[in-house]
């Protein structure tokens, strides 16, 4: 799983790390329980301050995407949402994005197709049919 960081971007590096890891979890490149590098190792590899990586990991932990323990470092954690509830903190964000997409004139079919693409739902449907 490649983490691409752009130092000339306006987005802070720790947010870039957080976003990339969340995206990788979402599209299945990072699986539940998969080990992440230690703060020091990732900082050394990316050539950034340990505090930056620490900040990103703290953010991911707080949001429930990873779990950390002192012995094994960090690992991916997929929360089981058995009630299929939309997390409250995401509702507003999604609402805003959908409104923006609608305002740009994108049809609901295109938006749904795009969401299905991100979810990998088409592939799963096809696999189910087979």
């Amino acid at each position: 799983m490649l983490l691409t960081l752009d130092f000339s971007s306006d987005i802070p590096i720790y947010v870039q790390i957080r976003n990339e890891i969340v995206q990788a979890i979402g599209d299945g490149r990072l699986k539940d329980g998969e080990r992440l590098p230690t703060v020091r190792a990732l900082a050394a590899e990316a050539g950034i301050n340990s505090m930056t990586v620490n900040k990103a990991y703290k953010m991911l932990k707080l949001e429930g995407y990873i779990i950390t323990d002192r012995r094994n470092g960090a690992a991916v954690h997929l929360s089981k949402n058995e009630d299929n509830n939309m997390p409250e903190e995401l509702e507003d964000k999604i609402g805003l994005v959908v409104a923006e997409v609608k305002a740009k004139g994108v049809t609901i079919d295109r938006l749904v197709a795009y969401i299905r693409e991100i979810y990998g739902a088409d592939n799963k449907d096809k696999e189910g049919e087979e």
Partner: protein
Amino acid sequence: MGMKILMGCVCILPMMLIFYGIMYFEGKPKGNILFGVTLWQEAFEDEKIKQMQKLYKKRLLLINIMTIALFVAGCIPKRESISMSIFMMLILVIIIAYFIPFAIANRQLTSYKLTANQTNGTPVSGEKIAVDIKAVANREPVMFKKTGLAGMIAGIIPVILEIIIGTSSDMKGYNLLVVGVLSSVGIIMFCMLFVYSRMKTDIVSTDSAVNIQVTRVRNYQLSRMSVIFIWVNTIFTFYIWIRMWADYVKVTEIVIVSLIYVIIVMAAIIVAQIKIRKAEDKYKGEYISEADDDRYWLWGMVYYNKNDKSFMVNKRTGIGTTINMAKPAGKIMMAVVGIIVALSIIGSSIWMILLDFTPVSLTIEQGKLVSNQIGNEYTINLNAITKAELVDELPDMSKRVGTGMDTLYKGLWREKDGTDCQVCVRINGGCYIKIETVSGRYYLNDEDKSDTKELYDMLTDYIENK
């Protein structure tokens, strides 16, 4: 003349070929990077970029012709010291000149990329890096640690033995310095095993398993090369230490063994780098990296990134690794190497010319025989001289410490029968005084043959009348 041929065949020409070979391969694209510039996929079909590559090769050839011309010019002077000084300067020229075409190509391509991107509307970042998270999380431990440690410890044994049962007191410091320097090479190479294991992972694919495999191959090859280096260095250190005890050692023997040592080490380095390159080529497929960290590469060759804590990083083009010049250790290392190279080249050139052109004088002053050249070389009390003999030829002898130029022999030498002798003679086609004293043997003469003969007569008169 022999020295000039040796210098040309052993040093200048191989160095020229090695630099030409390295820089020729540096001019080939590695992934989407050419001349240290990150390019877009279609760029390699661009006629202007193809033209730049051709021009780069032409410039390299021009440097080759210039180097050969300077080497031939260096062979013309009759005095060895002048030729050797020109050769020394030529080494400096080779080190710098072969990088100039690359730096020019880097500048041209960078400005072309900027123009092309502005036309296409593509933003140029130059500060984008990629990290493979899974590869970092699955880092391999240090390889060949035990074999390397054993080799390093074995390499220290001659130093310990020299301290405990060392040779005669006048040579002990010198011998200790030689074996100490050699064994320190083994220590440095052992430390490199740890540096290799901490180097950044290679990213040649979007598949982490591939990146892990390529990084593993790289670490294995580099570590194996280091261990070979450590053990060959240890054997060489033992050889040098044992030969220090020998009565008589021919210079050619030392040169041949040193050459074998260098060839084995060079072969290990080249084989390792070729295997790393092959592994990268085998696995990388059609992957084009998103990373673009051009801004951190000065002239496309020198890595300078203040934010990066890594000391060693993979080179962008060609093969091998390079150091981060923004790190204090990188700066210190380059400054030390630069000062050593500049001082040794300039200093040794001046020293050789001084040795060659400063006359040798032999006089008798206040009951003492005094031999002078750059400084006062030897002062022998006439009463201590037991025998003096005028010889036309010097005996077969090998240098232990000192100078062995075409025109001057100076310092501590050892004759074939194992006798140590102090020498300060101008090689002028005959006329040397062999002097036996209570403390040892000397070979001395004066710049002028007639003065040497005159002095010899005075000496024999003194010994007969004593």
